[in-house]
């Protein structure tokens, strides 16, 4: 139920501004419905007129009175009513098509806008695929539902009401007969939908298992081939495939039977209406013409009566998906934004020092990662952070430009808590080079001036030169205009890393945070990246998560982290002399013989 409430709130938020359009559409749909339900009575009347005409005509005494005037008029109204129906539905559809595409457009941009404001924490705790699914499947489902379900739903409801009203207006007895089978149909539909959802869920589980197996096996085909496991692999597949067949058959039957069942119910109901209507006609006191007209009119209604129910059952799953989609996106909408002080302090220069003062931090409450870390870096110095995986090196980086905020203690620039600076000002002066260099679609030049889209080509080239990538770019046929495609497969990991370094150089940050790549590139490429990094570090204050000995050896200060605590701190020589953790690390990892 809360799902429904959240989804309702979400739609209300985005559809509110289209209230006028939707109101007009509803009025148009009501008019169209009126046309549709009234039209059969004119067909009935036309038949009644014809019967009268025939009766007059058959009798030589009254033949002179026989006239088509009434009949012609009736037919003209009949045709006009359908013109009315077609034009109103056309306009309602045009309006609703706009509502659908414009509101989902706003939802899409709204989602993106929200994501740009959210805290990094959210992205770290959710898989990319899961978040991306909100753009692809969730928004897609919402658009499909709005595009198709909205009109059909309005139409189904309006027609249902309209037909009921008209039926009772025409003949109460036959109206009840037409409705008599409704409870049976509803019970059957409810039961089938329930069975279908139960068995389709089971089917989804089994297809998930089967697909998972196929994926795992085929992706690991090299191991299967080198170990000669083909027969085993087929055996495992057969078991899952057979199991899936069983559950899927149930699911397919239950979900497939609803439509024929409802179609059949409609057929049966029409038969019953014809039966009773014609029985009424021959046993009652009605005139022959009126009786014929009544049967024709009610056959028409009986054929349409089940339409709303049929379209509702086929829209059901679509609406269900749209509700789920809205709930999932609404979840994102309720995530907290990043906090920037209003108005924040400006930041132009770091004169003296960057300090971490007794910093405590946890990603999850109760699971503290940093337990009181103190680091002081004077401007112009380079600090190397060293320590085993999980020691908290990356966490320290996350705190410096406020991807996360400390739990206790503080990070200060020249004594000012960084939480007091305006967030954009702070980040504009903190440059980051990440292990995994993420580039964006666009040209190479676009990527290098990513941090400053206004930068001219001279600046771009200068940055590329400093990053040792200019010669490579210049050697490409399209040079700086070479597109960086989605997969970026044209460039090696090393080249991408160099471009990301150029990107950082261009923004000329005061403080630099570098996360050295570990295993993506061979050692020769690594040396090139190293040289580029040295160029950036030159003359700047920098924090480096260091894996390479050379970086560590060049550092003004080495900070050794273990399990969230600083265990050693000093220059290379000092730490070697201490003969502690660092010394062991150095001897184990960095020395050959």
């Amino acid at each position: 139920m809360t799902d429904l409430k959240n989804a309702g709130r979400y739609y209300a938020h985005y559809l509110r501004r289209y209230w006028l359009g939707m109101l007009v559409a509803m009025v148009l749909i009501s008019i169209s419905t009126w046309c549709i339900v009234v039209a059969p009575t004119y067909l009935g009347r036309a038949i009644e007129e014809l019967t009268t005409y025939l009766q007059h005509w058959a009798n030589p005494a009254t033949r002179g009175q026989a006239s088509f005037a009434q009949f012609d008029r009736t037919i003209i109204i009949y045709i006009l009513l359908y013109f009315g129906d077609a034009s109103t539905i056309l306009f309602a559809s045009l309006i609703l098509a706009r509502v659908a595409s414009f509101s989902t457009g706003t939802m899409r941009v709204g989602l993106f806008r929200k994501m740009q404001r959210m805290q990094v924490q959210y992205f770290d705790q959710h898989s990319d695929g899961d978040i991306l699914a909100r753009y692809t499947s969730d928004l897609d489902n919402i658009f499909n539902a709005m595009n198709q379900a909205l009109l059909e739903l309005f139409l189904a409801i309006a027609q249902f009401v309209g037909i009921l009203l008209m039926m009772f207006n025409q003949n109460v007895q036959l109206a009840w007969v037409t409705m008599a089978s409704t409870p049976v149909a509803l019970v059957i539909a409810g039961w089938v939908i329930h069975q279908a959802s139960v068995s389709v869920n089971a089917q989804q589980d089994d297809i998930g298992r089967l697909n998972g197996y196929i994926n795992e096996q085929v992706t690991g085909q090299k191991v299967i081939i080198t170990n000669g496991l083909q027969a085993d692999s087929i055996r495992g597949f057969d078991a899952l495939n057979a199991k899936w067949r069983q559950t899927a058959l149930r699911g397919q039957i239950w979900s497939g039977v609803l439509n024929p069942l409802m179609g059949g119910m409609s057929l049966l109901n029409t038969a019953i209406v014809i039966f009773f209507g014609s029985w009424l006609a021959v046993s009652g006191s009605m005139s022959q013409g009126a009786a014929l007209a009544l049967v024709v009119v009610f056959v028409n209604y009986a054929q349409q009566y089940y339409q709303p129910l049929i379209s509702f059952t086929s829209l059901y799953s679509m609406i269900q998906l749209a509700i789920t989609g809205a709930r999932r996106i609404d979840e994102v909408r309720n995530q907290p934004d990043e906090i920037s002080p209003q108005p924040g302090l400006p930041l132009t220069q770091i004169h003296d020092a960057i300090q971490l003062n007794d910093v405590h931090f946890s990603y999850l409450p109760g699971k503290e990662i940093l337990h009181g870390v103190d680091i002081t870096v004077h401007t112009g110095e380079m600090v190397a952070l060293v320590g085993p995986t999980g020691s908290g090196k990356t966490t320290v980086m996350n705190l410096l430009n406020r991807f996360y905020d400390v739990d206790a203690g503080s990070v200060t620039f020249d004594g000012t808590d960084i939480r007091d600076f305006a967030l954009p000002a702070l980040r504009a002066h903190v440059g980051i080079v990440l292990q995994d260099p993420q580039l964006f679609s666009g040209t190479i030049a676009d990527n290098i001036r990513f941090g400053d889209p206004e930068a001219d080509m001279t600046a771009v080239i200068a940055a590329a030169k400093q990053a040792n990538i200019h010669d490579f770019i210049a050697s490409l046929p399209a040079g700086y205009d070479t597109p960086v495609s989605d997969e970026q497969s044209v460039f090696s990991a090393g080249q991408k890393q160099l471009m990301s370094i150029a990107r950082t150089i261009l923004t000329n940050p005061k403080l630099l945070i570098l996360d050295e790549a570990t295993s993506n590139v061979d050692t020769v490429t690594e040396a090139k990246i190293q040289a580029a990094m040295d160029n950036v570090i030159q003359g700047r204050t920098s924090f480096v998560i260091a894996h390479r000995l050379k970086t560590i050896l060049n550092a003004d200060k080495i900070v050794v982290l273990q399990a969230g605590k600083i265990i050693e701190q000093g220059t290379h020589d000092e730490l070697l002399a201490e003969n502690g953790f660092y010394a062991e690390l150095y001897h184990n990892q960095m020395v050959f013989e």
Partner: protein
Amino acid sequence: MKLLKPYLARFKGDVWWAIVSVAVVAFATLWQPRVLQQIMTAIIANDKATVFRLGLWLVALGVIGIGAGVINTVYSARIALNVATNLRADVYRHVQTFAYADVEQFSPSNLVVRMTNDINQIQQVLMAVFQQVTRIPLLFFGALVLALVTIPSLWWIILVMMAAIIGVSWFAFQKMGKLFGRTQKLVERVNTIARENLMGIRVVKSFVQEDNQIKTFAKASDAMRDVNTKIGDLFAILMPAFFLACNLAIGVSVFLIGRNITAHPAYLAAISSYTSYLFQIMFAVINAGFMTTFAARAMISIGRLETVMTHAPSMHFVAGPSQPVGGSIAFDHVSFTYPGDDQPTLRDISFTVPAGAQVGIVGATGSGKTTLAQLIPRLFDPDTGTVTLGGVDLRELSQATIRDTVSFVLQRSTLFSGTIAANLRQAQPSAALPQMERAAGIAQAAEFIERLPERYDAPVEERSANFSGGQKQRLAITRGVIAEPKVLILDDATSALDARSEKLVQEALGKHLAHTTTVIIAEKISSIIHADEILVLADGRLVGHGTHRELVANNPTYQEIYRTQKAKEAAQ
């Protein structure tokens, strides 16, 4: 379509039932207006007995319609599922006969998509086809014939109505085709921007580019919205146009019938059934259109599966059981080009490794190390030259022989979901606990396996997500050594291990698998420094071989690699 024929033939019985039952449904639907007309005639004649008899017959027809609909669903589902299950099984079996080159040619993810999405697509379409396929033509021709029989003179109205419906659809879909292409591109663009911003959220934030990215995204999103609106407009025309065409046809028909009523008074009873037939003709034409586009998608899937099924495995092994063969390896003027590449990855490589020796292979990324290693277990055949195992050309050995002789531990260690023991038994089906413990001891995996409550029966999750990179590699090495192979290849298989564990693995290999020929591919020189012989690759050529000491002294490529890794010099 050829692909599905044998399957449909196999389930002939189901197909027959599905078609007969859907024909019954169509008959019930078409016959109702016919009976209605007779009832109307009976009303005019005031014939109570006939009205009653026909009324009962109508109700019976309705019940028959429901029953037949249910039966049809059951058999359609059976056809769809039986074909999907068997087709998938056959494709899977066929893929298992593939050599690795074939798998790479299709790419594993592509093969997975074909076995999952494409078959699912075919299943859905088969279901729809057997629920509809005979119904549409039956309803169409049935309604057409019955309408023409009922009031022959109005044939041209039916023609005009159909022409209008087809004309409008043709116009709309013509225009939509282009728009669909555009919207597809825009969808991709929007998703790309979203994905890049997700993966690069730290980059965007640290460069304070949120607003610019929102602008870029909004531009793409707005373009997509506008195309969607245009498509929506075209769709908006369709239904009202169809219904208007049909209702106009009915109005004009009734008018013409009425004006000539004195010539054919019996038509008075036929008006209602005639309108029903016109509606059925309209629905049949519309449904046929939908089915065509639906089936077109299935044809694409069928085509994609056909290419897999008709692809012959690119490599054949001589038949025969596993036979003992020696552990020496020799490459004789071997060159190799990946299918689809124009440059060879390996060029004229020759070397020999005596049984029981330890060889290291080093070189920059892309120098051909992994490719070279993959030729030893015959994952690929060389273009020219020969690879021999124990002095025998690989192409003359049975598959079983090679698998039992050579064990290959991959760079990206693939474990399968199940248990640790199940993964180890993949290399040695008969392996008992002591053997597992011994192998795990060599790979330095015993230490963490012992700490797991279920030890060797501990579960391995999908993508072995419950183990760290180093643990995965150690498990893969355990699997690699458990059968005590004559030849063991470690393709960068210790990259996630720390230096100490790596050293321990190497010492254990030397001690426990002393008679195994070991080929170690490594990025780090420290991993192969003690090898009996080191091969140095550059751009697919063997540019040097010898011991570490020799290579350091006289091989420039090796010297460069060594220099970038050496600690003491780097310090200067």
